[in-house]
């Protein structure tokens, strides 16, 4: 994933997306003779944060190596990456599915390392255009490569892993994680373990590239799993029989395709980059990084469940919306003292509106304190839920406070004595209903409740029903 720095990993060129080709390059990222790289401090700091958040060990000594191969979008003829001493290793990320598609589990992280990106090569398919175009704007952008353990057992788990990772990265603010813009890229490695009469057999591994969304990842893995099974049935090839294959996902055709056979196996000839100084990290620095992470999704989910009594499903929904919405919820839940109430309102009313109007929570016209005022009235019985919804809509549309809206609409709590009087009135005016009720037809009350509401929309139907029963009972 691309780290959210202003400038590139080894030079001061901007990393802004969407610039005209070759307008964000300099002698360093262009690999001109004599140019030298110098490490971007912020990129390293963001890397440490990220690795700490996925529970990795942070190496106290790390260095950069040259990964050598030839490609027109790699101007130096090598990529500065990390080989044997990456800055972090051995972490994990917990995944779960609120809908229960799979059991909660930990996915191991083998390593996360920091490297520079290559440029872009574009091929124009127009007839007669035999050349490829190279745009080096992206060359030198800082990338964090995270490699997971082969712990995932289904495309759903893979998707959950990616979603959780993306959510985490968003909470940390270390990357835009936008697959469309290329700030998050995914390569998947898949094989099958097949039960045979002779024991479990592993098939050769396939690496899938060119998946441009989480959905594509899920679909590609599902497709490939099936294709691998067919290949297994045809060839019986086991892991180790043939080299790892690389295939590209074609989203339009919904298939993977084998990529051109390379004329030589990749010998990257890694060696330590003599132009870059190694980096040492102290215990104190590691402690500081851990302390500064803030509450991350996993912690927040647990907190919502234990402190506020939310279901895993509900806490998941809220946490997935991002820190800002969680903060909104926390305020409302704490101030009203009712997490479930807050959660319902947030999901059913607030989120619905945000989606409808394509707002994020920062743009929502009703602040958390303003919503609290409204919900407290509901809690106090001053306002019934349906009326409260009306009020909220008006608050959204006009920007006014709950009190102002209620005043305008003439919504007010109906006095208990008024209710009693009203109920007595209704009972007296509807002798047939009284008879039916006495005869055991409880549902007869419904019409009286309806009449009460018509007479005064502000009545609390529940309380009216209670009072009616009392009144009828006295007859």
């Amino acid at each position: 994933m691309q780290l959210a720095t202003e400038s590139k990993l080894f030079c001061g060129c901007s990393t802004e997306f969407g610039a005209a080709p070759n307008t964000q390059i300099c002698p360093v990222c262009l690999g001109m003779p004599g140019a030298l790289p110098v490490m971007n401090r912020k990129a390293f700091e963001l890397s440490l944060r990220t690795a700490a958040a996925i529970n990795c060990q942070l190496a106290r000594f790390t260095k950069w190596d040259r990964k050598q191969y030839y490609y027109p979008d790699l101007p130096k003829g090598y990529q500065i990456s990390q080989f044997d001493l990456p800055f972090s290793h051995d972490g994990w990320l917990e995944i779960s599915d609120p809908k229960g598609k799979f059991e909660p589990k930990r996915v191991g992280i083998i390593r996360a390392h920091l490297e520079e990106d290559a440029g872009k090569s574009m091929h124009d398919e127009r007839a007669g255009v035999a050349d490829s175009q190279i745009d080096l704007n992206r060359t030198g952008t800082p990338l964090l490569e995270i490699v997971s353990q082969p712990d995932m057992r289904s495309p759903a788990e893979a998707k959950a892993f990616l979603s959780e990772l993306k959510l985490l990265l968003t909470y940390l603010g270390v990357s835009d994680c936008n697959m469309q813009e290329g700030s998050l890229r995914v390569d998947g490695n898949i094989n099958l373990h097949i039960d045979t009469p002779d024991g479990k057999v592993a098939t050769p591994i396939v690496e899938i590239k060119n998946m441009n969304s989480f959905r594509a990842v899920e679909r590609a893995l599902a497709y490939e799993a099936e294709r691998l099974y067919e290949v297994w049935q045809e060839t019986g090839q086991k892991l180790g029989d043939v080299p790892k294959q690389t295939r590209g996902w074609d989203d339009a055709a919904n298939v993977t395709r084998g990529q051109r056979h390379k004329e030589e196996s990749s010998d990257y000839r890694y060696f330590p980059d003599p132009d870059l100084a190694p980096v040492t990290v102290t215990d104190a620095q590691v402690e500081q990084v851990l302390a500064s992470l803030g509450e991350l999704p996993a912690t927040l989910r647990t907190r919502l469940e234990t402190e506020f009594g939310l279901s895993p499903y509900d806490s998941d929904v809220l946490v997935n919306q991002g820190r800002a919405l969680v903060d909104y919820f926390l305020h409302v839940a704490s101030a009203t003292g009712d997490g479930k109430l807050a959660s319902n309102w947030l999901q059913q009313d607030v989120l619905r509106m945000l989606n409808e109007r394509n707002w994020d929570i920062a743009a929502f016209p009703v602040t958390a304190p303003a919503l609290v005022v409204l919900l407290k009235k509901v809690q106090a019985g001053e306002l019934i839920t349906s009326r409260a919804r009306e009020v909220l809509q008006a608050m959204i549309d006009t920007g006014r406070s709950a009190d102002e809206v209620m005043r305008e609409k003439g919504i007010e709590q109906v006095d208990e004595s008024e209710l009693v009087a009203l109920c007595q009135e209704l009972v007296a005016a509807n002798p047939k209903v009284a008879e039916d009720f006495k005869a055991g037809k409880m549902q007869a009350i419904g019409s009286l409740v309806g009449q009460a509401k018509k007479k005064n929309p502000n009545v609390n139907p529940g309380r009216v029903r209670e009072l009616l029963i009392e009144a009828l009972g006295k007859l």
Partner: protein
Amino acid sequence: MSLTELSAAELLQQLRSGEVSATDAAQACLARIDQVNERVNAMIRVDHAKVLADAGKVDEKRAAGKSIGALAGLPVVVKDLLCTQGEPTTCGSRMLRNFSPPYDATAVAKLRAADGVILGKANLDEFAMGGSTESSIFGPTRNPWDTTRVAGGSSGGSAAAIAASLAPLAIGTDTGGSIRQPAGLCGITGLKPTYGRISRYGLIAFASSLDQIGPMAHSAEDCALLLEVLAGHDPRDATSVDRPVPKYRELLNTSLKGLKLGVVKEHFGEGLNEEVAAAVEQAIDAYRSLGAEIRDVALPHGKYGVATYYVIAPSEASSNLARYDGVHYGYRADEGQLLAELDAERKQLLAAGNKRAAEHLDTALVRMYRKSRSEGFGPEVKRRIMLGTYALSAGYYDAYYVKALKVRRLIRQDFDRAFEQVDLIVGPVTPSTAFKIGEKTNDPLAMYREDLYTVTANLAGIAGIAFPCGQSKSGLPIGVQLQSPPFQEETLLRAAHQFQQATDWHQRRPKL
């Protein structure tokens, strides 16, 4: 006396006093170049108009009463391995023959900021790979003392320019001896600073952990002047060291009494030319007379220096030169021609029924890389790229590259231990005097083994200086080398300077 016969220090004095203008100095050097360069081929490119314009600007500055930099209009020759903005920087190679960098090397920028006037780009071994300046596409540089002989390399052009009095100051580079060896063979003074002393930004890389820029001139005093200007930390070079730059010129005259010089017995073994050995011994005697104490020291792993160097340097070079692929700059092979060739090859293979080979034929892109590089690079460069690629490749990396890095540490530890006993190490800089042009080009290994006295300083990262201490019977210069612990350039310069105060080898000039 012609201005070109003056040392840099002398010329500087006259420039500062106003006796001589920067334009005068430039004109004198240009005239000398016109007169003599053809015979020595020290210079690749001299832009007369630009030189005079640059000199004129310095004179204008002085006339306007503005403060003048430390070099005050001194002409300086720059090895064509350092980037000079907007001017061709060729590295002596077809690969970069038409390349003009859009930026100055930091060392060049510092030179300009100090009001040095760049006289032109000096010849070199292609991409600094060589010890004789015979591999440049611009032809060999000839030793001004005997133009049938090499000037040494890879900074042969810079060395010859000084020796032939084309300029009072030159910038060279040293990866395995490329300043010190030509200095020794041309009878001039050349200093390789400690690694990290001078920024490598804009120095076209040969072997990144070994390359260093350094001054070359007639004397230690002149080298000190240039070193003061070039040295210093550069945020654009992560390997440059953040240490203050001493005023080297002010430290030249401190007495040598009590200075401990180490001598390595193995340096004087077989393979060292007798005359060279004798001259170096004489130099050691001279140091005794100056009050220095001579001691034996051991550098037990020194004999593995050449082997260690010739694994590490080509390995790094093979990586540093991977960028020369004809894609973004530099030489690209004729595309029409290569496509036609591929087509013909494919047809031939198919006609012979060899479908598999036809399928595995280079793609146009790969063929473009291969042809551009093969046509762009000369044989020595290709040889070292091949050697380095091999040493780094899977299966050989541990046995060669990593092993060499370990021996490198042993070599460094030898120096550390020796420098606990002595302040400097004194010894030969080359095993013989200048050899004939063409004499060694057929035996690469023999050529490599000539570097035995110089490579270890680069491997260890320490500093070394070479200066003349005698002449062979046939009148060829003989040099001596001093090596110091890291960041002791002031001791090297002081020791060389005082030797030069007591002797006159450095004042001799070839008859051209």
